[in-house]
């Protein structure tokens, strides 16, 4: 119970403290202190009506005490007037703490930071994950992850990366960067370690709530929710299960419905961007009978938006599902994706459907050479055996 409150409040509390103190490390220290005090007191005293405000006030007071002790208050605290206004003991449950999580998101996902630093910092600062957890999720040592985080924080401080929502002229690019970080976290979750998928959705929800007029924020959230709803059907033991063969009773219908509702919102806002289109495709693919020609058409639109050959490969798959494997193969053979596993496995499948078994075998063998994970290798071996 307490852990749930902590998880929900961490990002908001930390954001408020970074805004107040202008320093990541100090903010984190103060937040941790406040959460520790809460963990001691709340079980006996009960959770305050406004836990976030209580935590922020407590953390601020601790930070100010600490700064006073260091006798460098005037130098380090750049907003003394606000600091003086803080009460010594929090006694007002109606106090409203300004939500500065959006500022924090844009700071953490600033493109001047290395991508892996953006990802780690977003999970730490907004998701409230422990360094050790993040390290586990990305299969690196805790030491490495600690260094990655402190390097990112040091760059923010030294280079003057702003704690602010970018102005209108910068916003489209910078929002793209934020969405890319969240989607990357989500896709890491698909590799099935720490549940980063759920974490990415939580962050996506925060972003969509804070930017209610941005269709792509809703589009990404919808996309992640609909994919996440199918996660239990994607594996059978160790084996990868394709959409066609998935046991639909393992899907989470409530999450699919919730994802669709978010998608409706994105479409109502006029969203036609890459995440919205992908969410529409994901939604269509949850229908009992999938409208493959429409999926192919949407992939065509997505190719126009992204210029990605991998998306073009997906369009080919949709064409084949729509009943035209020969057209699909023509599309695939025009692609320059020789080092890509799914290029070869898709070719193999299309050739098989066209009755060209020998060529299909060659393609599947090439795919098998490129496979790195056990489920992928087993899946491809099975396909090869069936030929």
């Amino acid at each position: 119970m307490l852990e749930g409150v902590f998880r929900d409040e961490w990002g908001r509390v930390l954001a408020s403290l970074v805004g107040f103190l202008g320093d990541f490390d100090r903010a984190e220290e103060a937040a941790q202190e406040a959460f520790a005090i809460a963990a001691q007191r709340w079980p006996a005293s009960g959770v305050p009506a406004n836990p976030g405000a209580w935590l922020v006030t407590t953390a601020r007071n601790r930070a100010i005490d600490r700064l006073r002790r260091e006798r460098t208050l005037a130098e380090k605290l750049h907003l003394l007037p606000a600091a003086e206004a803080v009460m010594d003991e929090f006694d007002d449950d109606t106090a409203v703490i300004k939500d500065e999580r959006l500022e924090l998101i844009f700071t953490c996902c600033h493109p001047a930071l290395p991508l892996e630093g953006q990802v780690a910092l977003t999970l730490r600062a907004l998701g409230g994950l422990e360094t050790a957890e993040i390290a586990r999720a990305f299969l690196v040592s805790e030491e490495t992850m600690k260094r990655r985080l402190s390097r990112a924080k040091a760059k923010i401080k030294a280079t003057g990366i702003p704690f602010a929502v970018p102005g209108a002229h910068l916003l489209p690019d910078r929002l793209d960067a934020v969405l890319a970080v969240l989607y990357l976290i989500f896709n890491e979750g698909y590799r099935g370690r720490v549940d980063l998928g759920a974490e990415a959705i939580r962050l996506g929800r925060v972003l969509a709530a804070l930017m209610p007029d941005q269709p792509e924020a809703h589009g990404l959230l919808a996309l992640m929710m609909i994919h996440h709803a199918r996660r239990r059907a994607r594996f059978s033991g160790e084996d990868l299960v394709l959409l066609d063969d998935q046991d639909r009773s393992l899907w989470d219908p409530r999450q699919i419905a919730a994802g669709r509702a978010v998608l409706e919102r994105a479409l109502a806002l006029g969203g036609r961007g890459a995440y919205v289109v992908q969410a529409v495709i994901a939604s269509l693919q949850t229908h009992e009978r999938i409208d493959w020609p429409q999926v192919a058409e949407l992939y065509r639109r997505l190719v126009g938006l992204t210029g990605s050959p991998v998306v073009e490969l997906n369009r080919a798959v949709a064409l084949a599902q729509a009943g035209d494997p020969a057209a699909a193969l023509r599309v695939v053979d025009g692609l320059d994706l020789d080092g890509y596993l799914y290029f070869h496995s898709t070719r193999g499948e299309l050739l098989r459907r066209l009755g060209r078994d020998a060529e299909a075998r060659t393609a599947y063998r090439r795919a098998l050479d490129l496979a790195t994970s056990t489920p992928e290798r087993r899946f491809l071996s099975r396909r090869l055996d069936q030929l």
Partner: protein
Amino acid sequence: MQYALLVYDEPGYLDALSDEEREAAYAEYFALADDERYLGGAQLRSAETATSVRVVNGRTLMTDGPFADTKEVLGGFCLIEAADLDEAIELAARIPAARLGGVVEVRPVGLGPAGIKPAVIGTGR
């Protein structure tokens, strides 16, 4: 905060432009130099004029040429005053070399936001 904008470009890249394009690039440089956030800067002579100096065991050693032998060389620099990195990046993006195949490296000057002045480089004697 102060930032140094270090402009790396391919030598002679301006010569490869048409007269109009070159004029436009100069005009952009002049406009930047007129910006109130521009504190100073200079264009450097070609890398062939460079001498790299180091002191080893009290002896001053020198080699002909720039420190790093790369296709793009440090061709100039400016010092600017900007509110934060985003503003510095916007100014950096206005340097024509950035869109003409070069790169502008943005580096904060000094020892960080605390406002500590950079140490004076010298022997201390």
